């Protein structure tokens, strides 16, 4: 990771493409790629455990955003996504400034941590930053949710019992035992 080549939005916007599953968001192919990239940054592949890209969590994120956010939230989501694109371009073009090219994770951290005063100092629209933060946080929450409620996670990582068969109200915790969020 690291380097200008990885920063989002360096290329031109592509034409709006048709994604029927989340048509209310009017997302382009490149924009979807950014969501995909972001999901991967949030939950990377590697070690022995699958990550966002293996589980295609970007689809879950987009369906949730499309179907479950209200109209205002959807607008903020899409604006945030576009603002993030734009910020990425600015980062690329500003190679000598204090806002240098970053890897994805650091770039997202910069955006999430930015306050209004700093945005103003950098001549950035605060509304763009605010929407970008909303977008990032929303994608992150849906990615986390998608991960821990994926079939993979609920069968192979922390099995979910459809038929517990009993309820016990006071079970001594075994410190050696791996904690299962569905137990």
């Amino acid at each position, binding site marked *: 990771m690291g380097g200008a080549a990885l920063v989002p939005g360096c290329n031109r916007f592509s034409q709006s493409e048709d994604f029927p599953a989340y048509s209310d968001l009017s997302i382009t192919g490149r924009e979807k790629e950014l969501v995909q990239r972001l999901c991967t940054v949030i939950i990377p592949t590697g070690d022995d455990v699958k*990550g966002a890209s293996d589980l295609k969590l970007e689809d879950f994120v987009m369906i949730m955003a499309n*179907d479950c956010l209200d109209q205002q939230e959807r607008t903020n989501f899409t604006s945030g996504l576009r603002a993030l694109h734009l910020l990425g371009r600015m980062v690329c073009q500003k190679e000598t400034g204090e806002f240098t090219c970053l890897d994805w994770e650091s770039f997202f951290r910069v955006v999430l941590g930015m306050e209004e005063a700093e945005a103003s100092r950098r001549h950035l629209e605060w509304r763009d930053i605010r929407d970008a933060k909303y977008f990032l946080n929303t994608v992150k929450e849906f990615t986390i949710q998608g991960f821990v409620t994926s079939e993979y996670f609920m069968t192979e990582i922390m099995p979910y019992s459809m038929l517990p068969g009993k*309820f016990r109200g006071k079970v001594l915790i075994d410190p050696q035992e791996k904690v299962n969020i569905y137990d």
Partner: protein
Amino acid sequence: MTDLTIDRVKEVNFDAIVIGTGMTGGWAAKELTEKGLKTLVLERGRELVHVRDYPTAHLYPYELEHRNRLTDRLIQENPILSGCHAFTEDKQHLFVKDAEHPYIQSEPFSWIRGYQTGGRSIMWGRMVQRWSDYDFEGPARDGFAVDWPIRYKDLAPWYSYVERFIGVSGNRDGLDTLPDGEFLPPMELTAVEDYFRQRVAALYKDRRVIMGRCAHITGNYERYRNQGRGGCQYRNECRRGCPLGGYFSSNSSTIPWAMKTGNLTLKHHAVVHSIIYNDHRERATGVRVIDGLAGHVTEYFAKIIFVNAGSFNSNLLLLNSRSNRFPEGLGNDNGLLGKYIAFHNYRASVTAEYRGLPEYRTQGRRPASAYIPRFRNVKKQETGFLRGYAATFNGHRPVVFDRNGFGHRLKNSMLNPSYSDSWKVSSGMMGETIPKESSYVGLDPDQKDRWGVPLLTVSVSYDDNDEAMIGDFFEQFGEMFSKAGFSDIRVRDSHRIPGLDIHEMGGVRMGKDPETSLLNKWNQLHACPNVIVSDGACMTSTSTQNPSLTYMALTARAVDHAVNELRRLNL
């Protein structure tokens, strides 16, 4: 031309008609058919067969596209229904959508309905606490509504009768405020609930924390196998419909039981327009039914008619049953039909944390909650407000992970969660509300629904007594939580509008005097005794207990009486 063939006559003539298949309609159907009466049961909604029609019962969480969250479209299309906690992605098909059957809210009121076999008994909360005489004597002692025409001793054997059939899990707690019943083994309290139980018992003479009595079969028993029902497996997905029949619903229990007698005729999409009253014979003779799909009208006839359409729909039906004798609605000589509506006040809750018992967790998914019976104004008036509240109590040990950051660190956190430092506890108020003449349902003079029935107008709201009770609940539970060593105690008033408790009651209240009530002590209309109303519409007051058990016991008792009266040729 009138079709007078014998078959046709048989098709429309029955011994008894039951309107509704929900909690009480199912019981009326079971009791009447078991007693040998040819019974027509009318359901306005679609057919929903136990097991076969539970499409989401076996779905894993990841098989629900939105992980059980409502879509924005559903919320926008259903501003009333989407306020209901049980209306979720997996259960959306069981609820009546806002546009399907509109009504008029003179005051904000959420009317939550389920039009299908079993009605709302599929999605109910399954808490079944008996009333005591402290509840039945409330109106007379405190001077509101009218005196109940019955006392605990009248209903006690019927509580037992119903409990044995539906299966009720609970402890024999020996409380005079909440009489014991016919219980199957109780579900366990969690460690923190048991701790709170002990603390409250030590600190307060008048307060007890118990495991809630719930309509679940705990264990395996032949008498439930005979109903095709097995023991609860602690899935806590009850409201999707339980393929095991682990909890009671009309679908899993009373309706199939009635079907087995051979005496049941069950019709769906049967919207009852009105009850037919014969001025000459001075009795109700049948019902006018609109085919919900095709729209044509059929009349059915019977000796007795049970109105179990669900509180508000029972009111609506009686109000719409006009005749020369009853121009203001069937049985409505005193003008009180539709009035004295009440509900349960579920607005208030208190949450906190407990840092003790760090070595324990829970296992499985318990489909019920602990319960704190009413302790306010029980034996005498002791506060500035009338009556009181019961409360739920729940304590669990959350599993948490650090959601900060991105990447491998975040992923590692998710893969290695831990038990939270503290238990989370919460209590929800279940407050009695006072039935008042100004709380009513009525018919809109102009607007009609798609079946040609006037729209229902609902005018019910909170009053000062409810507000004062919320304040007291916050004080008392704040103190109890604090004395138990709980921390981070927070109170919350959800300000949710009436109705979301789904405990609407009254309008056709029971009473001793035909001048001030609609029903006698056997749930018969004073002025038309072969019409019996035994759902929530009959309630004179609400007390604090979840009401279905009482409705069911009243229904079984009412059937017994009505059939005896029929046999004595008194009806």
